[in-house]
């Protein structure tokens, strides 16, 4: 490739003098050399294009084969009744029809979005609160210590954290109820009541992802210009006022980012309910992804499960769209 490009350049360089030496009129010479240059340029552009395609090919193939194609394939599969063992049967929109009257599906979507909203709100609020407190600390070492502490749970897998938490939150023998008892507080039916199980899933998810929002907000607060704060300080603005009027608007893009990513992540909640509650008690923590998993890989209803996936996909799309539309109104982009 390198030799070829060298050749292109040499030829381009050689062509100009050769035209000048010939006895043709100047305009014509001009014309010819321009076209030669253009051709060389074209060739160079084509080569660059080729190079560009070669460079993006690997990532593109992976994305197309394992994400784009599956999205489209979901729609196709959703039109079939298929156990992946015997022959598929085309059923048209029957799966979507069945899905509308399937309480498990609607309920799981409600459960999932409910969990997502609570989890994301707490993650953002707590992460921001702790970041504000840490930002007040002058000492870098102290900051790093807290950062490491809040980040620690993120290093473990949600699955193994859920194993640990299932023991910690065990109604009868768990550490939490032991200490509640010690403090003469009422014990909570963490995993065996509908409210308790929801609370446990929320607490575990918030607890594990807190480090993420925390780090985002520490960075965002750090980028708030100091002179603005100083000026407000001199004007006698109270800390609360400074937060609501200056800091929050300035870090609003980060709030948006944290909540978008958080929502998309929690709408896929699976590991925690799979390990800790299996969706129970009843269907109180039965998330949509858990439903898809069980429908497809436990009941072998691949078509029906695809239909549920398609609905989940649509819901995610809507959430993202709504969030970005709404955010135009309040996010302050500097």
């Amino acid at each position, binding site marked *: 490739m390198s030799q070829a490009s060298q050749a292109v350049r040499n030829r381009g360089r050689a062509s100009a003098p050769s035209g000048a030496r010939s006895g043709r009129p100047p305009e014509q010479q001009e014309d010819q050399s321009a076209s030669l240059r253009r051709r060389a340029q074209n060739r160079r552009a084509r080569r660059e294009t080729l190079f560009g395609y070669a460079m993006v090919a690997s990532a593109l193939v992976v994305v*197309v*084969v394992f994400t*784009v194609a599956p999205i489209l394939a979901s729609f196709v599969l959703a039109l079939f009744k298929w156990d992946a063992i015997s022959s598929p049967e085309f059923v048209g929109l029957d799966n979507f029809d069945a899905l509308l009257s399937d309480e498990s599906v609607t309920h799981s979507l409600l459960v999932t979005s409910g969990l997502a909203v609570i989890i994301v709100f707490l993650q953002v609020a707590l992460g921001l609160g702790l970041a504000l407190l840490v930002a007040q600390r002058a000492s870098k070492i102290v900051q790093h210590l807290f950062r490491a502490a809040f980040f620690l749970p993120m290093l473990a897998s949600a699955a193994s954290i859920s194993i640990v938490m299932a023991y910690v939150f065990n109604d009868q023998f768990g550490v939490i109820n032991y200490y509640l008892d010690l403090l003469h507080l009422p014990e909570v039916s963490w995993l065996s009541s509908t409210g308790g199980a929801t609370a446990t899933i929320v607490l575990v998810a918030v607890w594990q992802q807190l480090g993420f929002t925390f780090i985002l907000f520490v960075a965002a607060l750090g980028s708030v210009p100091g002179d603005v704060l100083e000026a407000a300080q001199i004007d006698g603005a109270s800390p609360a006022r400074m937060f609501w009027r200056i800091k929050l608007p300035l870090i609003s893009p980060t709030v948006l980012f944290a909540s978008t990513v958080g929502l998309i992540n929690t709408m896929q909640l699976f590991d925690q309910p799979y390990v800790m509650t299996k969706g*129970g008690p009843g*269907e*109180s923590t039965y998330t949509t992804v858990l439903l898809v998993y069980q429908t497809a890989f*436990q009941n072998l209803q691949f078509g029906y499960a695809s239909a549920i996936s398609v609905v989940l996909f649509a819901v995610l799309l809507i959430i993202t769209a709504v969030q970005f539309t709404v955010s135009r109104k309040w996010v302050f982009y500097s």
Partner: protein
Amino acid sequence: MSSGILKEQFSRRGVLRAGVASAAVAGVGGLASACSSGSSSSSDSKVLNVLVFTDQASANKLSTAAAPFEAAHPGMKVKFTGITGTDWNDFFSKLLTQIAAGNAPDIVSVATEGLQLFAAKGLAEPLDDYVKRDASELKSYFADVHPALIEAMMYQGHLYELPTDFNAGNMFYSTSLLESAGVGRPADDWTKDDFYDIATKIARKGGSAVPYNWVVRLWGSWTSWMYANGGNLLTEGKWDGGDWLWNTFYPNDPAASGRKGGWRWGDPTANSAPVVESLDYMIQLQKEGLSAKPDVGGGATLQGLFASNKIGMSVGGGFWAGGLHNAGMKTGSFDVQYFPKWRTQRHLFGAGGYGILKSSKNKDLAWEFVKSLVSAKNLDVLMPGNTTTFPRKSMMTAERYSTTGPKNWHVFYDTLTKFPETAPIPAPPYYQAMAIALNKRTTEAMSSGKAKAALDGLQSDLETAMKTG
């Protein structure tokens, strides 16, 4: 390759086209090729692939059981693969996924939970012809195995597996906790009231231990109380057929009278009075603090709790003997008794065995291997350390249980003879959907305290599952 072609290939429209094309491959192409997936067995003609519900380390140890078979059939290799899971439905999910992925094994361990599922889906090969052919060879095996276990392996008149183990739902108790509450070993014919009395005494003593605990699942859950109360989730019936087996192997055995071609599970009866009553009893025990809140799944946590002396009594089967021993319990610190009597003292049980898949290319050899497994010697290798109950009565000896306990190990097998109405768990072909619904509705009842409402839900879940298969 000229850049023009490349450009053409990677143009935007081209990419979109490629995307749609790959989608078609994934979707339509996949659906189409699915028709032929039944025959796509991964098994090499020289290898018998055996899938076992255990971890790989234990699966590797099973190769000892294959040694005589491999010696008798030069060139054949038996490969054991372990698949773990929290409960049978979890295991079946993985097994079915593997079959769906085109990696069907030749032989697979399937317990009562999934026997009808695999038979009804046409995945399992009936053993009738093989058994008839090798009847003389199998006489001693059948003579040693209780007919109830055999019948549990039948579906629509065909035999699908030779039982290699079983577990009846008995009652385990912590000897020290009972002692400290001032009660001794309950009598063989103890009742639900006796049980309640003991539980109350353990509770009154205080301390961190809970009198009773159980696990949410089909086997040995609140379902044991349901059986004792004369109820069932599904209408009981028997398939016709099976005479060929009963007449050949159990001609004059009274225990075989009335046995037919396997259990035929009919319309759901999940919200019938005795069923509701038994689940209500669980709620009552929990409300009175006599029972811990049950876990969902395989019961590993329950065993752990029991082994650390946190549980007074719990439903358990023969597999608890080895399980508790492995979890660190001393031989004398636990014992077992029959399940208490309510309206009846009917127990439930589940049996395990090895089935041959229809897709196997080596069915004859697979049969030879399956047959070889049920010798006493091989069963010993298959199930080491009393982690289950042997189907062969002759293998149940005091010596076997001297290392692990319990003292009254005879209860495990005698359940079958002492209570002839004892029956397998109700596991229809739609067991997978049933397991999901049962777990869901049981936990719902335990958290809401409303058994009837939850079981009405279960009833309708099961009716749907029965229809959609």
